[in-house]
């Protein structure tokens, strides 16, 4: 199914709405309340209204948590506005609480005097007790600091769908659409995309489509006609300045799956994606599994080790072997990575990082596998490491990983995390047909061939693929003779091979762009150096601090290893270097050891992304202002 719409450049006519630069809405309810779906529809309507936006879904860790409990709350947050939306927002302006548990869990994130929209129909004594309330917060005055819209959404929904003959249970399930209609009015959103979508989704059950549309319209009508919040006329959020073109919302997992596929197409290689299910990395496997007709081969292995080994086998056979996991799984792949390093085969290892150690908090995010990626193997075993900074950036990083892996015949570790994988942002859809290809040339020359013959410039060994007569050869994890590729235990040869493997990886820095300053002056008081998914909050915090007149610069590193060639020089141009990370100071140690720079960390390991406010405060305290 494809739907496309055009964002019209127009001034909203339904004034006098209160104009906001941006707003954050959090939809929260029980797992069964359809909050993710509601959030997805609101996202689309908001994109169509011409706002910039960023979203983040927050699922419960339990698969089927009991209804009405605090640990069964499923939430969806969207931040949208007229400029510079870089994160899903620190705290929210509007909380939609479909039950008491949702209110209980989410209230702490609501801004002072923020709005609560609550369904009184679900605030029964039983549900209140389940959520841990003694009384009813909607009635006991404990929410006086907020603006509360308390409506019996359950009953209003039942009334609105009465004539469609649904069972009580089915009718109640339209609650989320009723709520969505209400919120649509509050922000002046159009309903058309959602009604189109409902009609397609329930094409086989027209009565469900009709009921949901009726609920949506009813919610909208109630908001429009009833006196909510004393004279409140709704909000208006001006359109953002967005480059023209065709857009879609994309999650990091989707963008990564598509980017890796694009990379394989540009390299003219068969993509062989080998993985073992693990949170939060599985969604990449799921996306790719629907792409068999595009020539994508997916293989669900028996374990992490087998997944890595099958990917190595795929590359040995002339495909692009890719394996994917999260930190604990990548630990298991370590030995296989050593084999790919030793046999110098291309391999992409995708790590969607999560909070650890061990099982840790699988659904929560962290950036704590940087040491593991750069250093975490036996022996001197360098690899290339890249990190994506946002959902859409995953597409470009996926392509770059394949390019480097094949050009340099090396494993490339790609770091994303639970946050980027699940978060979504609008993406200007690129034209893959217009992208510059980097076709792989397999070895074809039998004269003077040996498997460790190298390209004098990149030091990449030749890639000879089984099936070619005259190139039969044996490779393995035992040290190879530099001149013949045969097994060698010669001491001087091992020194030489170690040096060559090191120099090859170091040389990647000659083939990748120099580090740029993302925002702020190139020389100055303070460089704030980030990497990976903290891009959004750092970027916005630096924006704000610059606007306040503070002299700070944002540097965001994609090439984690080897580091960009000019980075040391760049950092020496700043009086102070501050490194915010969602770990205990890993990039910090790398920078200190590489450049002997007296960098300081801002560190957070709560399983939650940085808020903009936290970063601003951290930077201020480092600046002593």
């Amino acid at each position, binding site marked *: 199914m494809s739907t496309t719409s055009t964002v019209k450049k127009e001034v909203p006519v339904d004034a006098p709405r209160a104009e906001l630069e941006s707003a954050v809405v959090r939809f929260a309810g029980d797992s069964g309340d359809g909050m993710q779906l509601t959030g997805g529809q609101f996202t689309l309507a908001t994109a169509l209204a011409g706002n910039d936006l960023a979203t983040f879904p927050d699922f419960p860790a339990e698969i089927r948590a009991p209804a009405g409990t605090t640990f069964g709350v499923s939430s969806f947050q969207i931040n949208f506005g007229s400029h510079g939306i870089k994160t899903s927002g620190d705290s929210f302006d509007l909380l939609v609480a479909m039950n008491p548990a949702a209110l209980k869990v989410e209230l702490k994130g609501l801004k002072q005097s923020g709005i609560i929209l609550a369904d009184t129909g679900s605030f029964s004594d039983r549900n209140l007790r389940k959520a841990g309330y003694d009384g009813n917060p909607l009635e006991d005055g404990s929410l006086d600091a907020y603006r509360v819209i308390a409506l019996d959404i359950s009953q209003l929904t039942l009334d609105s769908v009465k004539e469609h003959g649904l069972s009580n249970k089915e009718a109640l399930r339209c609650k989320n659409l009723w709520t969505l209609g209400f919120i649509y009015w509050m922000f002046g959103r159009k309903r058309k*995309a959602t009604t189109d979508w409902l009609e397609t989704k329930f094409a086989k059950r027209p009565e469900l489509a009709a009921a949901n549309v009726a609920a949506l319209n009813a919610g909208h009508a109630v908001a429009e006609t009833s006196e909510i919040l004393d004279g409140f006329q709704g909000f208006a959020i001006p359109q953002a300045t967005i480059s023209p073109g065709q857009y879609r919302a994309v999650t990091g997992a989707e963008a990564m799956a598509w980017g890796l596929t694009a990379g394989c197409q540009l390299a003219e290689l068969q993509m062989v994606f080998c993985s073992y299910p693990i949170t939060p990395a599985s969604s990449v496997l799921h996306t790719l599994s629907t792409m068999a007709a595009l020539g994508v*081969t997916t293989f669900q292995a028996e374990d992490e080790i087998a997944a890595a080994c099958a990917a190595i086998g795929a590359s040995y056979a002339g495909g692009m072997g890719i394996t994917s996991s999260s930190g604990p799984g990548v630990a298991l792949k370590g030995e296989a990575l050593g084999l790919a390093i030793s046999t110098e085969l291309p391999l992409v290892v995708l790590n969607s990082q999560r909070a650890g150690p061990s099982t840790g908090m699988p659904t929560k995010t962290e950036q704590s596998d940087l040491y593991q990626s750069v250093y975490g193997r036996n022996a001197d075993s360098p690899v290339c490491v890249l990190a994506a900074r946002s959902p859409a950036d995953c597409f470009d990083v996926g392509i770059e990983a394949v390019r480097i892996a094949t050009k340099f015949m090396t494993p490339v570790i790609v770091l994303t995390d639970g946050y980027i994988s699940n978060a979504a942002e609008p993406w200007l859809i690129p034209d893959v047909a217009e992208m510059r290809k980097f076709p792989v040339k397999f070895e074809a020359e039998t004269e003077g061939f040996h498997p460790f013959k190298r390209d004098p410039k990149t030091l990449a060994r030749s890639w000879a693929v089984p099936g070619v007569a005259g190139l039969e050869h*044996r490779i393995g994890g035992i040290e190879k003779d530099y001149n013949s590729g045969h097994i060698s235990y010669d001491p001087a040869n091992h020194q030489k091979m170690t040096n060559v493997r090191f120099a090859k990886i170091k040389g990647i820095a000659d083939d990748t762009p120099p580090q740029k300053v993302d925002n702020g002056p190139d020389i100055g008081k303070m460089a704030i150096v980030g990497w990976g998914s903290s891009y959004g909050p750092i970027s916005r915090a630096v924006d704000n601090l610059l606007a306040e007149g503070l002299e700070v610069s944002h540097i965001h590193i994609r090439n984690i290893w080897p580091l960009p060639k000019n980075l040391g020089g760049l950092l020496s141009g700043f009086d102070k270097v501050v490194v915010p990370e969602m770990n205990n100071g890993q990039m910090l140690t790398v920078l200190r050891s590489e450049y002997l720079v007296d960098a300081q960390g801002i560190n957070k390991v709560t399983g939650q992304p940085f808020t903009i406010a936290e970063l601003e405060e951290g930077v201020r305290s480092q600046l002593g202002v």
Partner: protein
Amino acid sequence: MNVVAKPEALKPKDYASDQEVRWCPGCGDYAILRAVQKALADIGAKKEKTVFVSGIGCAARFPYYLSTYGFHTIHGRAPSIATGIKITNPELDVWIVSGDGDSLSIGGNHLLHLIRRNVDVQFLLFNNEIYGLTKGQYSPTSRAGTRSPSTPLGSVDKPISPVAFALGAGARFIARGIDSMQKKLPDVFARAHAHKGASFVEIYQNCIVYNDGVFSNFTEKDVVANRQIHLEHGKPIIFGAENQFGLRVADGKLALEVVSIGEDGITEDDIVVHDETDRIMAHMLAEMQGADRPVAIGVLYCDPMTSYEEGMQGLQARAKKQSMNHDLNELLRRGHTWTVEDA
């Protein structure tokens, strides 16, 4: 570019690489290497299409001694690497060479899944019931009580039966051989090669240094005839120097017993006929173990079914017909999109 002239027919020695073979003198691996080279010549294997994959251990050195493609990988993981090779290029003819520790200890999980998936490879398990390369520790196939550097008082754990393991994993081809069986071993390999799907071959291999003579109860010259059963499909299972023994299904049991033909009124008609496609028979033959019992050699079981690669190819063909996702650019534009116009 030099064109490689295709020789009429390759000889066993043409499959040997230029590398010096470095097993201990007298090791059973030499004999298996010879048998594999002969089998490759017999089946007319194309060197460029043939890949030998191995893990770690004495046996895993095997690929270096062949002139085909070879990949000496990491301990226990050869099945996974071979699977990756086959799903990428099903045209390649892949052999896996492994030892008992490599395949049944550290790599047990991978072997299980290679067999279960029915990946079209030949899996050769050199069983010497010991860890050779690491200097003689007991292995998962060592008999209980084995004294070794790590079990000076004798091992406690019971051994695994490779053939029973393979059957349990759902193998569709199972054969057994002995390193010294120079005449018949190449034929066993050729049969394994002919079978499409995972072909599992256990080869009893003598480690002259750390476990010499462990199979002597059925390999010594004077006992060979009476202690080895050479199976032939469709023929009664008769053995012995004078063909005086046979197997029959024991009364009231699902087990095979050795009987003497001509004694107690037993005739050839009472002897069970070997049916390679009979899974229960294969189980009974696999269960036939112990110092006092004969050992079944040859093809125990062969009942082919769709290989993993065929299944995958079928799936991709189906996806190409049914799926909407044929073009990446199109896929990226599917679903909800919106267009921002020039201001």
